[in-house]
């Protein structure tokens, strides 16, 4: 297939199951009917899944009060305190 814009040959690629044609000359992309919608749907699924890490199996999240420290996802839900050692605060009034 020839590029409708510059006439160079188009090559076919597969992206997440969607066939797209890209021009080897001007790098323009040709999408068939419905392919843009498919790509948009894939993108939105990816962005919904990505930010919150899936919960760790076997480590249910302990309830915390509204004023609790913000907890960032991490290995086993730990809060990154191990590098501070065992705070002396835990040993005094």
């Amino acid at each position: 297939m020839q590029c409708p814009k510059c006439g160079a040959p188009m090559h076919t690629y597969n992206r997440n199951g969607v066939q797209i044609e890209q021009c080897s000359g001007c790098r323009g992309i040709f999408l068939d009917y419905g392919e843009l919608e498919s790509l948009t749907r894939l993108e939105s699924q990816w962005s919904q899944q990505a930010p919150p890490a899936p919960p760790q199996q076997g480590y249910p999240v302990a309830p915390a009060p509204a004023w609790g420290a913000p907890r960032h996802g991490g290995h086993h839900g730990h809060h990154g305190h191990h590098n501070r050692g065992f705070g002396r605060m835990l040993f005094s009034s």
Partner: protein
Amino acid sequence: MSTPTVRALGRFASAEAHRNGGPCLCEGLADTPAHVLADRPDATVVRHGPVVAKAHAADTDPGELSVRAGVAAHPALAHVLLAPLTRSAVTADGRPVTFWPYGLPVDPRAPRDAPWEATATLLAALHAVPTDVLPGPLPPMRGPLKAARAVERMRGAGEHPDARAVEAAWAALPAWARAESPAPGRSLCHGDLHLGQLVRDPGGDGSWRLIDIDDMGEGDPAWDLARPAAWFACGLLAPDDWTRFLGAYRAAGGAAVPAEGDPWPALDVPARALTVQTAALAIAKSVAEHRELDADERDVIDACARIAHLPDELTPAPTK
């Protein structure tokens, strides 16, 4: 370097350790009169071999101390509280002295070995003891009073940019948590739980016992869970450790929180009070020592700022 109180306690402890005569062979301590475990106005603690002598605060009520020591010696608490030795004394400046067997404390360098389950199980047993079998009258648990004193100490220390957040978090607490009205709850409580309050029983199988009876009394058992709860909420205690502690307390039938579900309705007020107490002491100490707050202290003060900005609907209604 040593104060008259420390020297007096060293003599007391040595005399108690060698009541039956004989030379002092106390683990290489023969050349050193005493080993000072703490030296503060509210507690000077000196060890000589197997004996620990503790001078309590000068304003200690002798009657209340006697009841508390009687509770620690009571058979119903033999597996919960370290029992005192039978002697007592008074320092030259009037501080009452009690004597205790020395037991190995929790190792601050071994966080993975921290006895969270044992601590929780001991607390559940303490909270389950029927108070009518104990010596009395049982004084109130002094947790709220300690929080109020910490805030007073912060106020007396001088200006600090973070004091406002701590004051605001304090002001949002109900009166009982600020020691301004009688506290709810009729359980026997420790009143000042932290990991420095556990030692291995030297007389038995080496299992853990709670020590330090100065704040023990009748009150809301949630107060005893509230310091670990506050550490967890402030991000100082890993969620796994908190879950271990709380799970063991519930497994032992502890009375302070419901057996399942969200424990925070019971824990919230005491945990906020202990967060304020910890923050106030951090400020007072950092001002006195002319130093910046460390990372842990900063976390606790940040929690006070979040408490101070809680929307009203997230603040549980004060109970009396």
